């Protein structure tokens, strides 16, 4: 049923900005949808495309990769690499028949707890409209 579909989202957040941003949202007691499971990596440039593909293969409805704003990367260039990888990955997903919108890249800084809340809400709503991932294993 479309009405009670709750998307499962894997969040891969960078340690220095986005994960701290999620912390910020938590300590400020902001409410955001519980659909996203966050994994912390040291940099968005650490996000191996294999992680994303594996997540989809295991049935994730969406993957949210978040890193520092351009120019702010703790390791100088990591987020630029992530940006290019995600762009190519979206094309790959498209060819595999998975909607590229299911993969999202966002820049969220350590102080942007509110931005994180907004992003997850937007992403969850979009995925609810898209429906379950075609690779999702039906239970």
């Amino acid at each position, binding site marked *: 049923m479309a009405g009670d579909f709750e998307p499962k989202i894997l969040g891969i957040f960078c340690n220095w900005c986005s994960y701290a941003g999620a912390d910020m949202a938590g300590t400020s007691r902001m409410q955001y949808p519980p659909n996203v499971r966050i994994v912390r990596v040291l940099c968005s*440039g650490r996000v*191996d*495309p*294999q992680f994303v*593909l*594996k997540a*989809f*293969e295991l049935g994730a409805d969406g993957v949210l990769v978040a890193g520092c704003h351009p120019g702010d990367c703790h390791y100088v*260039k990591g987020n*630029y*690499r992530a*940006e*290019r*990888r*995600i*762009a*190519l*990955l*979206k*094309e*790959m997903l498209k*060819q*595999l*028949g*998975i909607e590229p919108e299911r993969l999202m890249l966002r820049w969220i800084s350590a102080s942007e707890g509110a931005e994180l809340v907004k992003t997850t809400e937007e992403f969850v709503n979009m995925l609810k409209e898209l429906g379950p991932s*075609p*690779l999702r294993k039906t239970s």
Partner: protein
Amino acid sequence: MPVKVMFAQLASCWGCHQSLLDLHETLIDVLPQLEIVFWHTVADYKLHDVEKLPDGSVDVGFTEGFCRNEEDLHLLKLTRQKCKLLVSYGTCSTYGSIPSLLNLYSIDEALSRKFKEAESVVDGRIPDKYVPKMLEYVKPNREYVKYDLFLPGCPPEPPLIAEAITSLLRGEMPKLKERTLCDECPRIKSEVIVLKKVKRDFEGIPEPEKCLLEQGYICMGPATREGCGAVCPSAGFPCKGCMGPGPNVMDQGAKMLSALASLVDYESVSPEELVKTVKDVIGTFSRFTLPSSIIPKSVFKKK
């Protein structure tokens, strides 16, 4: 006593067997030691010739190609049953290779394209009598049967085959090399690579000695297993990755995609430009390994 061998051809182009013949003089040393019990690619053997062999009676079996229809699958299982040692010969058999890119389409789409919509076809119809049933999509052979040895390459290079066969004749198990292609590539590489521009293969003429990747060509070297002797890059053509991924890599395409994205200079190449240059992402990065990738086939839309 000669060693009993059989060669089974599944869906493939015959190229791997041709490469076997490219051993030339080495064959003179090898052939007297072999007793070929089945090789329907070169002589008139029939399926019942394999079926009547006792189980496990053949010492070494080679399979070339992947399973596209039920007959291929039958022959593959039969080969496993009859052979003590099974060798996956070539990239089709090991990873799926180029024809398996058809996994991006459904079999109905493919059949109708081939038999009805092709430009040369008039009043086409899809053959349904006296032909084996097509399988829905290609899986790597190793998901059907257990293999003892993999010899990738499209086709495997003669020295690799010679080494494998001679060590099998000595009773030893040949070992695949474990590094990446760049390690055996003779081209000159610098410490740091920064790509100002990504080029398609046909753009410009590559410099004769400098690393092709450094020159901006998409060379699959960093994500490919060594063992072919870097024949393509030595001849001025970027590696396409036919030897398959190196050890401990799940998805060759994803790895190369990742490598290329981190090599480009972010000030000169925008993500949009990169996507535009690469064009066909799967055809470029997962050309030989789609069926053994993390997501091995396209998700067909149910109508």
